[in-house]
């Protein structure tokens, strides 16, 4: 039995893996919900993002507890915990972006760009789930990781144009500018963190060889 099979291991390990998939699924839902909330200016959807983040916190605690109760070989545990923390951080910044958006009124062009960023983040998250599946399967993680980097590059391009345009925008007061700046930062941080999580998957994959 190879180490890849050991990754799946017994019942405890399988439970953790299922919870990790659920955790990533929550991030995908948060990004998709944020996209719809930005597009339609929907306050209910914005508060749903916070609910998803809270649910994510619960799942993260369960995962970490299971790991400390003995799931996985000891040398794998720190990297798995770190991976889960990164996904959780991505959920946190997505929630922060949703909260900041409640106080913002964006022009159509900026709104479209922000919705596109949230949409690409959701696609990145779906790809992260697919990449995670390769740890226990025959598929190549490298190509999934490349797809995530391609998506991240697209977000960087949109962010670059967006920031350049927003620098010329006149804000009413300090707080309007601060909230807008924080919103763009948090919105674009989700994809950075998903990319980091994908890098951690590579590390886990190497340690399974």
């Amino acid at each position, binding site marked *: 039995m190879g180490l890849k099979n050991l990754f799946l291991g017994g019942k405890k390990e399988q439970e953790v893996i299922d919870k990790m998939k659920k955790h990533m699924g929550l991030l995908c839902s948060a990004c998709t919900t944020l996209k719809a909330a930005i597009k339609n200016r929907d306050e209910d959807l914005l508060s749903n993002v916070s609910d998803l983040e809270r649910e994510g916190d619960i799942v993260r605690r369960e995962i970490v507890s299971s790991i400390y109760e003995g799931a996985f070989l000891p040398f794998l545990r720190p990297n798995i915990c770190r991976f889960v923390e990164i996904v959780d951080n991505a959920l946190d910044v997505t929630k922060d972006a949703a909260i900041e958006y409640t106080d913002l009124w964006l022009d159509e062009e900026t709104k479209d760009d922000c919705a596109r960023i949230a949409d690409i983040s959701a696609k990145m998250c779906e790809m992260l789930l697919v990449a995670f599946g390769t740890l226990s399967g025959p598929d190549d993680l490298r190509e999934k990781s490349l*797809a995530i980097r391609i998506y991240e590059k697209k977000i960087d391009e949109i962010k670059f144009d967006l920031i350049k345009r927003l620098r010329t925008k006149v804000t009413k007061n300090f707080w309007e500018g601060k909230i807008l700046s924080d919103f763009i930062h948090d919105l674009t941080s989700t994809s950075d963190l998903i990319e980091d999580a994908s890098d951690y998957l590579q590390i886990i994959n190497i340690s399974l060889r």
Partner: protein
Amino acid sequence: MKVEEVMNKKIEYIEPEATVYDAIERMVDKRIRSLLVNPKDEQDVYGLITVRDIVFKIINKNLNPGKIKVGEITSKPLVCVTKDMPIEHVMALMEKFNIARVIVCEEKKVGGIVSIFDVMAGSLIEKARGTRGA
């Protein structure tokens, strides 16, 4: 994967009377490799000027980019595709005409641009998603 998923909606335009040097400046500032050239008049059509045109037709021939008009080296007519076209079809067109960019046309209007890099990225994403043959 459809063209809509990979196309770039942000297009930079330039007038045919502008100099090639103006075009170079615009490309450097905006970090892009092509500009859409507006029609000269109502009878004219859109054209495209790329870094490749500038390097091969101007710089490599030691011509002065400040003295040559964009319209003189513009490629016309454009190869157009539709938003719902599969990217495999776009790849075939790019290979057939030996071009690296096609224009997305919507009812005689320009809706976006697709570069060979966009097609490659889209194709890799499709393969990673598992929706395209390995």
